[in-house]
């Protein structure tokens, strides 16, 4: 068993796997930059569904995604073996040193365990996420991603100060929805950055623009990028288009692992590096 852990958890393998993951992601980033629309369509859907429907038809641009998952799987196994090896070596010595010293020595292993948790959380997000979206209009009755029925009561846009250079741009939008809670109708506001949880699904807002006729605008592929500020420029939109708010409902089991994990890993990492003087004295301990 120990021999097996020594081989699988070898730090040299960890080093080269990290570089391999970095190289694959860099290659992927070039494809993602080259075809924003294709890879943006992967956001909000399960990776296996997307790969079956879109990924395979564009395999020349998407081949690196299975490679990335494979490399991360190997890295996860290597990290687990390395951590187990180190904890097995450290645990019998716990009474031979002060508790704080032992905690410092154990910290890298805890960080690595949390890293494995992050990898698992992301895998869960990528493979088990459910997301549905619908346009918002007053009076609409919606049922998205298992939220149960809710009614859109009102839609309101707040704008930046008219005297500023941001005049005519939307600063915040508020959609009031009526949901049934315990047999009682409750009105709750959904805003940008202020999502609402309804029956375990997260409700958020998104904005697109449409032609005044209501038809969607077909974007020139060369103009498609992550900058969506034009969707919120009201005066410009009103010339020929109108803003269209969407409600997006998301169920993501990975979030329950990721969000607490993020906080914990930063706290433990910060404490550990503080204890070793941020590498000033070269007092770092073996990882894993």
């Amino acid at each position, binding site marked *: 068993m120990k021999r097996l852990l020594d081989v699988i958890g070898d*730090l040299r393998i*960890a*080093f080269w796997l*990290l*570089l391999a*993951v*970095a190289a694959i*992601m*860099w290659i992927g*980033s070039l494809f*993602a*930059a080259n075809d924003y629309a294709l890879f*943006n369509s992967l*956001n*909000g859907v399960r990776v296996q569904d997307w790969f079956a429907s879109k990924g395979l038809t564009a395999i020349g641009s998407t081949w690196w995604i299975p490679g990335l998952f494979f490399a991360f799987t190997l890295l996860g196994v290597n990290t687990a073996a390395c951590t187990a090896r180190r904890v097995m070596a450290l645990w019998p010595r716990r009474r031979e040193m002060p508790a704080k010293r032992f905690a410092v020595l154990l910290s890298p292993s805890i960080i690595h365990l949390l890293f494995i948790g992050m990898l698992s959380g992301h895998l869960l997000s990528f493979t088990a*996420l459910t997301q549905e979206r619908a346009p918002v209009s007053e009076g609409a009755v919606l049922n998205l991603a298992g939220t149960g029925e809710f009614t859109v009561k009102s839609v309101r846009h707040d704008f*930046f*100060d008219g*005297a*500023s*250079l*941001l005049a005519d*741009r*939307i600063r*915040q*939008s508020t959609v009031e929805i009526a949901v049934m809670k315990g047999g009682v109708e409750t009105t709750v506001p959904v*805003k*940008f*950055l202020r999502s609402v949880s309804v029956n375990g699904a997260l409700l*958020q*807002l998104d*904005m697109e623009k449409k032609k005044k006729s209501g038809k969607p605008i077909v974007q020139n592929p060369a103009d498609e*990028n*992550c*900058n*969506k*500020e*034009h*969707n*919120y*420029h009201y005066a410009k939109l009103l010339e020929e288009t109108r803003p269209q708010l969407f409600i997006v409902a998301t169920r*993501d089991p*990975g*979030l329950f692992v*990721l*969000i607490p994990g*993020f*906080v914990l*890993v*930063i706290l433990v*990492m910060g404490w550990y*590096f503080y204890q070793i*003087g*941020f*590498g*000033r004295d*070269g007092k*770092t301990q*073996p*990882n894993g």
Partner: protein
Amino acid sequence: MTIHALLYAAAALYAAAFILHLAGKGRSSFAVLCSGFAVHTAYQVSRAWITGMFIPNGMFDGVFLLPWGMALAVVLLRLFSDRGTAWESAAAPLFLFALFALAYPKGLIPPTPNKLTVWANVFFLTEATGQACFYLAAWFAAAGIVTKRISTNYHSLIVWGFVLYSIAQVTGAIWAYLGWATTFRWGSRHLQSAVIWCYFAAYLHLRFLPSWGAREKSWYASAGFVVVAMNSFGSHLNEMGFPRIGG
């Protein structure tokens, strides 16, 4: 005179600091670099009012924040780290990044509602200062190779950079969760950010691989300059084409 004159002044002071360093006037070089940092800080703060109202996002635009972060790190290193290193020599890369900032569109990309959060500000602050540490580490590692005086004086810079960059990954993920309900977006920006993190996570493991000596580690740290540049300048150049206001 616009507020951008402050950036020109800061860049000039960084250049002067490097010239003084070359002339062997270490104390004067450091004093001028501190002046550049003070002027640059004033510029970053004033960017918050670039639209005619207070929008903190203006202060945290990565291209302008990067040389500021480098200047801050050099000042802290000079004050609190070993005195044997000519930290002010970093005024050279500092000036080069300030030059790039001078050539860059200086307005603010109009913020969408999802960008008006402190999480976005903390993300850009920690990302830029983390990258600043990586660039400086690369500079001092390369200086050691060129002068044939290999040392590990850059190591703590990479550790600090890694911690700051990890905080950026986490705050960025929380921001993405609040704004878009997912902690990771499939796109070049997120992927390249993860590339940088993985590269320096691998570096931290080098200390425990006996076959990697001080010279090899210096080469690896120096190559970090190219890795960070290749994985951040793509988005900087891409964003040059975005509409901006107040520039």
